[in-house]
């Protein structure tokens, strides 16, 4: 393959024609070490410390969510449109739902109004007792 005229046999052709900026190899070695250290610590922490932290965060979120929902449930007051919409997907009728949403305690005025409307006298109440 090689003879005296073989141009590729010249030793100077095997020399490296490329160069690098001054101080490149020192800086690139440091950069590689830093990059890989970060990569290493991301991987280690990713599998070691992050999982319990994420689990704890999810548990906190879950507890907070349950708390908020139960508070909202206690305060919930349906308006009539909500009830109409909800009645479509519920086994209860609109009226049942409306009745469920009304406050259980009646005021004194409402009781008197009811008694007048039904014609109930004080005597008849006393007689029943």
């Amino acid at each position, binding site marked *: 393959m090689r003879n005296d005229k073989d141009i590729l046999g010249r030793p100077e052709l095997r020399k490296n*024609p*490329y160069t*690098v*900026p001054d101080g490149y190899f020192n800086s690139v070695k440091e950069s590689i070490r830093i990059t890989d250290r970060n990569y290493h610590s991301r991987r280690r922490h990713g599998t070691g410390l992050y999982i319990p932290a994420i689990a704890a965060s999810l548990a906190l979120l879950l507890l907070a969510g349950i708390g908020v929902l139960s508070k909202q449930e206690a305060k919930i007051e349906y308006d009539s449109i909500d009830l109409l919409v909800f009645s479509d997907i519920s086994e209860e009728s609109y009226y049942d739902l409306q009745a469920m949403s009304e406050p259980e305690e009646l005021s004194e005025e409402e009781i008197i109004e009811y008694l007048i409307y039904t014609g109930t006298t004080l005597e008849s109440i006393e007689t029943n007792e």
Partner: protein
Amino acid sequence: MTDREIIDLYRNGQQEQAFNHIVEAYTERLYWHVRRFLCSHDDTNDLLQDIFIKVWAALPSFRGEAQLYTWLYRIATNEVLNFLRRQKVRAMMSLDSVSNILSKKIDEDPYFNGDEIQRVLHKAMNKLPEKQRIVFSLRYFDEMKYEDISEITGTSTGALKASYHHAYNKIKKDIEECF
């Protein structure tokens, strides 16, 4: 520190120290290996960082069946080939060839200090098929043994010798046509 001592260090739980020794011993060698394929300092610099991330990630699976240095060259060579394949797709989209793109990089490279014959030699290398290029680069410039190149490429030494012979003659012809 020898390759064996580096691996022993790694297996004794001193992974970061072992990796630092690899970086110290192989950064320059792998840089020149990659640079001969990519021609550009910036591309080589980027790929070198990726190569060492791969090395770090793959170190736990290094079983010591191959030599550490051929294993490192294998990772670097695979990364180079992947990079060149991506370049090939880009070149197809721009209706150019990878060898033209790489030749332009040699012409525009402010860090190319070779003479005209070296310029033609390195441009001629870019025209070679992948395997011929790898074997030519490792044998001609690094004077690597065929057995070691065989470990890197996974090709028999006989096939490598034939590839080197073809590559050598093609490059010689290209240079002779110019001078």
